[in-house]
């Protein structure tokens, strides 16, 4: 029986090649999207699950609420926290501090390398987390100061073929680290990314404290006892820092390590899952539509099967079997497509997803069930529909498939368009928002500004570098800063200031820079002046604040007020020193040459690549052995929106695919309708209808439903997009034109798709079409 069904299914697929292709291509593209998204989602969900005790590992997070209403969550803690937690809470078995430090220069055998993957951590780190060791014992490797564990990648980078264990790496000409262990490269689905992990106490060599409660600089991870209740414990530890430091307002809590990667960014998972379901559903709807539409042709066969003894159940099985066969055929094409598209998708999503079925039983299960479920959903309605026919009617030819399922089919087509229009709106809104972000006035001039990181001995020689580099051609201004105005890592809690009107604390971000900063980035002053060489006192006690700081502190006339042990000499106009996801926060700018880590070089317009060339050669003379690592400031700013742009691109691609599938289905439906109405069109032409009139009447039939789809899609998209834009403090308005344009685009697309068939039908010679009646 199965063989029989299979045979008839294959013959049907072959006989109706056009429809079969539409179905198979649609389903294959839908499934390929689905598989890619499944891979992506699976990867996103797999972060940090590979640690053996993943369910007991937590990160200590901090929360502060300030007098000005601002609040902040972060996850760096004082060095004293980890040992205190172990001491005070029996539920906490172990704890490790973790402090990454980028921008290092590491030397070995006279060669120097730039290194951003250095981190400092406690001895317990490798027994808490399960990073597989190649050499060394996890509990022993970090047992003495200046020991370091390196990844295989770092081993190759520094030692090549040499045997690394026991060898010395020199960091920033200051500290020697001895290699005690080698681990496999850190998997990409780990939120902790490092290449060298050195003993924690070594961090003091780089100016950080290793005890006390004042410096919030270290991430703190804890391992809970088995059966410990993390929620309860989270409440218990909340006031730990406040107990030891009376001025603190930090509230602690525990965050599962496995949640860190997605924290605050789960929307991607939902959005993509929804899109995957959308795309697959659209393809299923195509199948349902075309199968139901064509059931007229199949009705005779079904009737005859009933005549020779088939029960309704058997007919249902036959049709379901056909749709499942189609969906399995589509699956095999989808697998090919995935294989082809994966490199592009990886590029798009910045992931290293791989797709292999061998031994991957869960993936095979997902694929098989996708095919079966897709086939069943697609085939269910046509099967129930066609199996319900009464043989006598069908054989007489009075069983009109055209009229019976017509409403249902139109509802399905409208549903597809609802999804498509919503996706188009999403696409437009996201790209508008990204455009808005790129072109938003930041309050400073980001164009033609080079950002050079100061490593090794360079920070100590910044004044020499500034004066010498400004002599090379093409340089307009140079300023040294603690960090470029893209993300300021330093902040401090200010609880007392002159002119304070009420009790409370204000979180103030800190930027250390020299007197040339405002000139270099063309930052405007609203009051007073910027730091200046003319005032020697500025070096030690001059400070410049932004408007947000003045507002938060409630200062009426900021000039001359004492804040942070310095006197305010000026107020800068607010500028965006972090991404547009958040509002402009209070900022204090002061002169601290020991904290300068970057040079910002404003270039003159002209041949910039030449100018950079001469900068580089001058740099190599001044600080040989320190790499000339530069980046343009605007590129660095764009990096802040990398995730947003990536998401935008992925959504665009899937939207295009969804539209493609929807149009494919519409094309099939249009050709079916045209075919079904051949006779009617013939008669109309005989009665004097013109070609445009007939074409229009065919197009109108679909246009009507697309318009209806708009009405449903608009509110749907409005609410979803509003939610999506919430992550941006600065965002576009959802103007009506976006919705109208998306609707119009869908309508044009629909009309274009339907036109071909409609015009063809309208042009047909009525003598031909009516001959057989």
């Amino acid at each position, binding site marked *: *029986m199965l063989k*029989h069904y299979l*045979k*008839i299914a294959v*013959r*049907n697929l072959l*006989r109706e090649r056009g429809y079969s292709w539409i179905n198979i291509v649609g389903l294959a593209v839908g499934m390929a999207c689905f598989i890619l998204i499944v891979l992506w989602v699976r990867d996103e969900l797999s972060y940090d699950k590979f640690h053996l005790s993943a369910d007991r590992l937590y990160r200590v997070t901090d929360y502060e609420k300030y007098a000005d209403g601002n609040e902040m969550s972060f996850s760096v803690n004082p060095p004293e926290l980890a040992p205190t937690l172990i001491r005070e809470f029996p539920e906490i078995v172990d704890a490790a501090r973790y402090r990454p430090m980028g921008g290092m220069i590491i030397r070995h055998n006279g060669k120097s390398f730039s290194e951003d993957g250095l981190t400092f951590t406690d001895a317990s780190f490798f027994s808490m987390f399960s990073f597989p060791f190649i050499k060394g014992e996890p509990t022993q490797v970090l047992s003495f100061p200046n020991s370091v564990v390196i990844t295989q990648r770092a081993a190759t980078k520094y030692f090549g073929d040499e045997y690394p264990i026991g060898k010395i790496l020199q960091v920033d000409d200051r500290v020697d680290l001895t290699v005690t262990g080698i681990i496999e490269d850190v998997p990409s689905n780990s939120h902790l990314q490092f290449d060298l992990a050195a003993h924690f106490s070594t961090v003091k060599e780089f100016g950080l404290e290793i005890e006390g409660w004042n410096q919030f600089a270290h991430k703190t991870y804890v391992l809970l006892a088995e059966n410990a209740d993390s929620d309860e414990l989270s409440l218990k530890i909340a006031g730990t820092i406040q107990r030891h430091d009376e001025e603190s307002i930090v509230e602690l809590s525990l965050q599962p390590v496995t949640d860190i990667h997605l924290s605050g960014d789960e929307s991607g998972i939902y959005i993509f899952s929804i899109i995957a379901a959308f795309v697959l559903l659209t393809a299923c709807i195509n199948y349902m539509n075309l199968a139901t539409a064509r059931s007229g042709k199949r009705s*005779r*066969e079904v*009737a*005859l*099967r*009933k*005549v*020779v*003894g*088939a*029960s*309704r*159940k*058997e007919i249902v099985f036959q049709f379901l079997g056909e749709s499942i066969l189609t969906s399995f055929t589509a699956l095999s094409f989808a697998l090919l497509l995935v294989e082809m598209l994966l490199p592009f998708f990886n590029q798009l999503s910045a992931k290293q997803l791989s797709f292999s079925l061998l031994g991957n039983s869960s993936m095979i299960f997902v694929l098989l069930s996708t095919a079966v479920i897709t086939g069943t959903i697609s085939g269910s309605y046509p099967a129930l529909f066609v199996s319900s026919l*009464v*043989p*006598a*009617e069908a*054989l007489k030819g009075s069983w009109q498939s055209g009229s019976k399922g017509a409403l249902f089919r139109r509802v399905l087509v409208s549903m597809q368009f609802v999804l498509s229009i919503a996706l188009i709106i999403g696409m437009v809104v996201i790209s508008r928002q990204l455009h808005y972000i790129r072109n938003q006035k930041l309050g400073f001039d980001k164009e033609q500004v080079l950002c050079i990181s100061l490593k090794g001995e360079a920070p100590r020689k910044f004044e020499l570098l500034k004066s010498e580099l400004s002599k090379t051609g093409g340089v307009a201004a140079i300023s040294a800063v603690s960090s470029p105005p893209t993300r300021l890592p330093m902040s401090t809690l200010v609880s007392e200031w002159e002119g304070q009107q009420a009790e409370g604390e204000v979180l103030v971000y800190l930027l250390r820079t020299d007197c040339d900063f405002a000139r270099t980035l063309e930052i405007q002053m609203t009051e007073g002046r910027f730091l200046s060489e003319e005032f020697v006192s500025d070096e030690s006690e001059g400070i410049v604040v932004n408007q947000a700081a003045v507002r938060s502190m409630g200062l009426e006339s900021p000039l001359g007020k004492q804040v942070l042990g310095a006197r305010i000499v000026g107020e800068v106009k607010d500028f965006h020193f972090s991404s547009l996801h958040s509002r402009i926060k209070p900022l204090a700018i002061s002169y601290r040459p020991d904290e300068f880590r970057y040079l910002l070089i404003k270039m003159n317009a002209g041949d910039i690549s030449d100018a950079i060339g001469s900068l580089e050669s001058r740099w190599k003379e001044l600080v040989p052995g320190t790499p000339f690592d530069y980046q343009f400031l605007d590129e660095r700013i764009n990096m802040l929106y990398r995730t947003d742009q990536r998401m935008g691109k992925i959504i665009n691609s899937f939207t295009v695919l969804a539209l493609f599938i929807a149009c494919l289905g519409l094309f099939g439906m249009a050709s079916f309708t045209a075919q079904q109405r051949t006779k009617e069109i013939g008669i109309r032409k005989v009665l004097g209808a013109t070609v445009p009139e007939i074409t229009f009447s065919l197009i109108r039939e679909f246009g009507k439903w697309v318009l209806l789809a708009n009405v449903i899609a608009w509110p749907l998209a409005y609410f979803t997009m509003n939610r999506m834009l919430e992550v941006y403090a600065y965002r576009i308005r959802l103007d009506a034109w976006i919705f109208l344009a998306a609707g119009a685009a869908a309508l044009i697309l629909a009309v274009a798709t339907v036109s071909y068939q409609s015009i063809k039908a309208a042009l047909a010679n009525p003598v031909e079409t009516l001959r057989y009646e």
Partner: protein
Amino acid sequence: MNEQKLNAKEQETNSEELSMQNGVAPLIRTTNITKSYPSGFGKVFVLRNIDLEVSEGEFITIMGPSGAGKTTLLNIIGMLDEASEGEYSFLDQDVHKLNERKRAELYKQHMGFIFQSYHLIDDLTVYENLETPLLYKKVKGAERKSMVCDTLDRFQIVGKKDLFPSQLSGGQQQLVGVARAVIAKPRLLLADEPTGNLHSSQGEEIMQLLSKLNTEGTTIIQVTHSDKKASYGNRIIYLKDGWIVDKL
């Protein structure tokens, strides 16, 4: 009513035996069969109060002008269509009370259908067309094969077994149609103008075939316009405007 129901149930289990014992009990009995379609505010009647009894072994011809309801009656007897009112019992089972599954079961055990326009399944070869009823009857592979081969032999169409219907002439197609109808050895063969699309010599052939099947014990009901074809049967029922009449 209750008693009748009980009776019917008992007979359902033993229907084969009972009918064998009674021998003369009618194969088909219809009471007041009416078929109508809604039309505007009223109804259009296709069949009216048809009372009919058919005994095992009869060869009945239904005759009447176009639109008299011949095919509709045949379809209702053949369970391809349902009556709007009235009772229909087949082998002492009340067909109008059976659910779709039971009706399909009864149908495929006992009935075969032949159509004027052959109605073979286009996508299946001659062999496969013959095999299909056996598949639905769940006949096992080897037995199925031998039954199909026997039938191909008997109808002398072995050479055509791998051809598709579109590759056969009308007469050949109808031959396959008859073969398909009788392959499962039905008790009742229903033929709706089986020779209507054939020229006379082919028609003769088919009629002789039906006649032969009848003498072998198959009950046959045919619909025809032709008196000559009617003469192969042993009883004629005249239909006019949905009523049974004595004479046209």
